[in-house]
């Protein structure tokens, strides 16, 4: 229910850059995910939106209004914390009611709102319990209920699922997305898990070392990475990035030769290819190497090929098996090759 603009945001912690030159426009009702490794500035950026951290420079606007000097508690922003941050001295009911009480919602309305929020996250049976008496997933849902109960302008979620086990995480992911779609509240979600980012986001903001690397829809980020960092961060297993040389439309690296690439400036170039765009072939192909490892997952088999000193990950057939050190050839889907400048990491287009 709010549009958020981050304009030239800088954050310095003493002499250390936390966040630099962040420009993001978040549309109303959008689900945006800040994705990046730890220490990339994604949480700091979110905390600046919340008002828990003050930007060193730049403006934060909500619906056009500058929020920099507005206290966190007046921003009408709700946040779900990584450690849930439930009030341990209160029952779940009191926890969910707390924001209503603090914002002076009439007592008569409080009860209905609390029960509605609790119903939305399926916690109605646990309202009398203290947080300690709940499981991780239930605490997570209680934190979610506390955030949604007052229908804020903006949802902020700081790695809300990282303390849950894999199964629960997947279930909660669906829940969060469903609730966000239902309530149509602008949501900023911070995570280091690219699967969470891909599945939840309308748009993903990929950050590294305090700077935005790319902003785009999950499809754009996956299919059209802006640089080697984005390419290597998205996808599981990640994209293979092979450093080599490009000359006359031919890319060469130890054990690897790809011809027919469009004429571009040559020199030191990194070739990117996703494991799922590779296939094991018989006879000679783009890549010649030996089997380094075979990892069956049931659904598929990941084959690691050693070519020169480089290990290349290949998605093979689910019943592919091979002994170590047997020679193997790998073909690439040449329409899905990416070329990057080795020095800068930027995509060559």
């Amino acid at each position: 229910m709010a549009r958020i603009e981050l304009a030239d945001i800088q954050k310095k912690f003493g002499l250390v850059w936390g966040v630099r030159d962040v420009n993001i426009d978040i549309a109303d009702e959008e689900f945006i995910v800040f994705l990046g490794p730890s220490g990339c500035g994604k949480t700091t950026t979110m905390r600046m939106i919340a008002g828990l951290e003050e930007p060193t420079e730049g403006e934060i606007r909500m619906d056009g209004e500058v929020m920099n000097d507005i206290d966190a508690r007046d921003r009408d922003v709700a946040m779900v914390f990584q450690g849930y941050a439930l009030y341990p001295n209160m029952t779940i009911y009191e926890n969910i009611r707390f924001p209503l009480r603090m914002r002076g919602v009439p007592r008569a309305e409080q009860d209905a709102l609390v029960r509605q929020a609790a119903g939305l996250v399926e916690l109605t049976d646990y309202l009398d319990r203290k947080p300690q008496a709940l499981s991780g997933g239930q605490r997570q849902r209680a934190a979610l209920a506390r955030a949604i109960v007052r229908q804020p302008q903006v949802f902020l979620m700081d790695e809300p699922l990282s303390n849950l086990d894999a199964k629960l995480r997947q279930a909660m992911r669906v829940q969060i997305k469903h609730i966000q779609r239902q309530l149509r509240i602008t949501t900023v979600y911070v995570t280091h898990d690219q699967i969470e980012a891909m599945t939840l986001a309308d748009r993903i903001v990929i950050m590294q070392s305090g700077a935005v690397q790319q902003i785009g829809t999950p499809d754009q980020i996956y299919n059209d990475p802006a640089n080697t960092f984005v390419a290597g961060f998205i996808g599981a297993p990640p994209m293979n990035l092979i450093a080599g040389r490009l000359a006359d439309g031919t890319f060469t690296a130890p054990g690897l030769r790809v011809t027919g690439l469009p004429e571009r400036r040559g020199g030191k170039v990194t070739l990117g290819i996703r494991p799922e765009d590779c296939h094991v072939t018989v006879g000679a192909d783009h890549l010649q190497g030996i089997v380094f490892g075979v990892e069956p997952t049931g659904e598929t088999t990941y084959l690691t090929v050693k070519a020169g000193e480089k290990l290349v990950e290949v998605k093979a057939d689910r019943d592919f098996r091979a002994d170590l050190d047997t020679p193997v050839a790998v073909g690439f889907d040449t329409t899905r090759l990416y070329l990057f400048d080795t020095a800068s990491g930027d995509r060559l287009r």
Partner: protein
Amino acid sequence: MGETSLSGTGAARSAPARPATSRLRRRPRWLKTAFPYLLVAPAVIYLMLITLYPGIYAIIQSFYAVKFGPWQPVGFANYVRLWGDYQFWGALWNTLVIGSIALTLQCVLALLLAFFAYRDPWVRGWRIVFLLPMLFMPSAVAFIFKLSFLDARVVSDLLIRVGLIDGNLAIQSSVWMSRGLLILADVWQWTPFLFIIFVAALQGQDEEVEEAARLDGASWPAIFWNISLPMMKPVIAVALILRGIDITTMFTNVFIITKGGPAFGTETISYFIYRTGFRFFDFGYASAASVIMLILTILIAQFVVKRAFVSARS
């Protein structure tokens, strides 16, 4: 067949292994059983010598009339006499009044200070300053207060110069002013102790919880009242018990500053016991009063612990 061959190989294998294991020192069985007792023995022996022995001695003595000569068994006569002794009841009342006011004041003061200071990043650096009053010898503190308020009249003099009062404060002629002086001395010396404990408790609380409350729209006082304070309950309880017991047995300040006067108006139980025992040498009677005081402190401590911890847990 299979079994026998298996056990056969097992024996064959373990036989050469024997000498190897003998290198490991085996602990004798008796040591294993006695070990836990040995570990706690020093503490237990120490406690017995320091507290249990004199404690039991006092309990026994409280059933005797002890005045220089041989002990005369008197049964509960000492306790019966206490029941009717208005000075004992007065001492009890004084202890209650002085103690509860001092305790409330220092607790509230320390909480307020802690509330304002705990978020200060420098508080870790300069909180040692707050420890200073605690580091002074209690009798030295008592003498400082005696000098500045009574003997040398420093405070009176200052107040006169500022123009707040006309003549010297006649503290010693007013029961309430004397009690106030004892309260002031105790608050001055012990607020920092509570402050440090409360600051530590506040600093130890989850910062995320505070931030969550801020985003939920709570002001700093609201956060303190609704979240920090309830979470601090067990800490506050422990601090109150420690200080409460200390204050119940308040002696040094009374002994040095007021000597129980005026008109026994500041005589605490400890001072009553001291007076009975070491002025009138009525040891049996003093012991009886001590036993009563011991029972009272235990009861109060029990009550506070139960209330505070139960409500904090459930």
